[in-house]
């Protein structure tokens, strides 16, 4: 049977040193969610160059991909997306009551797995880039 602890409100960010794993998961999920919805608007704006024709589309995408900073931002996007997916699966499991007693461990696992996937993807994201 689960126990309940009074840990205070997660919205009181000033006491972040006292936060538990679940509170950090809540904050990271919010942060990555804000980044992803912000990116979705940017993504559609960039892809809208296709409306001006194939040449505009190719020039826009290849121009962006030739920038080193864009590749770094893409790695950041991957990190954000992978964490949001893995923690999202964790949240779906928690909502279904699966593995509730290990929700802190599954948060740490999400962090570690995100780190491994991102580090392993760096060569792919930095290939053929102009600096």
């Amino acid at each position: 049977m689960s126990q309940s602890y009074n840990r205070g409100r997660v919205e009181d960010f000033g006491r972040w040193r006292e936060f538990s794993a679940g509170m950090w998961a809540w904050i990271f999920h919010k942060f990555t969610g804000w980044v992803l919805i912000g990116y979705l608007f940017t993504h559609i704006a960039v892809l809208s160059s296709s409306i001006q024709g194939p040449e505009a589309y190719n020039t826009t995408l290849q121009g962006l991909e030739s920038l080193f900073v864009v590749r770094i931002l893409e790695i950041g996007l991957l990190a954000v997306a992978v964490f949001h997916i893995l923690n999202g699966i964790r949240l779906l499991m928690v909502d279904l009551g699966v593995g509730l007693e290990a929700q802190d461990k599954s948060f740490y696992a999400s962090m570690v797995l995100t780190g491994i996937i991102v580090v392993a993807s760096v060569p792919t994201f930095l290939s053929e880039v102009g600096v």
Partner: protein
Amino acid sequence: MAERYSSFEPASTRWVLQRVTAAFLVVVLAFHFFLLHFVHHAYEIEFAGTQARMENIGYFATMVAFLVTGTFHGVNGVYNALINQGLGGTQKRVVKWVLVVASVGLVAQGVRVAVTMAGF
């Protein structure tokens, strides 16, 4: 410890829709990222290849569903996060309609882009 933190009122319609769209997005976002960064590298993307993929009606429908569910999930998440932070009254109504208009605009523009890419 068996504690959960959520910005949603459990079992509300928005809470359920957030979970249903999440289950779809977990799969499609992973697929989208894998296909366009690992199978095809992003720097190799050209209109011809994009059109070849989008001409496939199954792929086209999946991408439009991805756009609609992604927009809903993201905007619904933002709305609930703001409510969770204490948004209420007139501000809540204004934010709600700004987000609704932004969502409709994003989906409309995204579908326009998808149709252009597919050449329909």
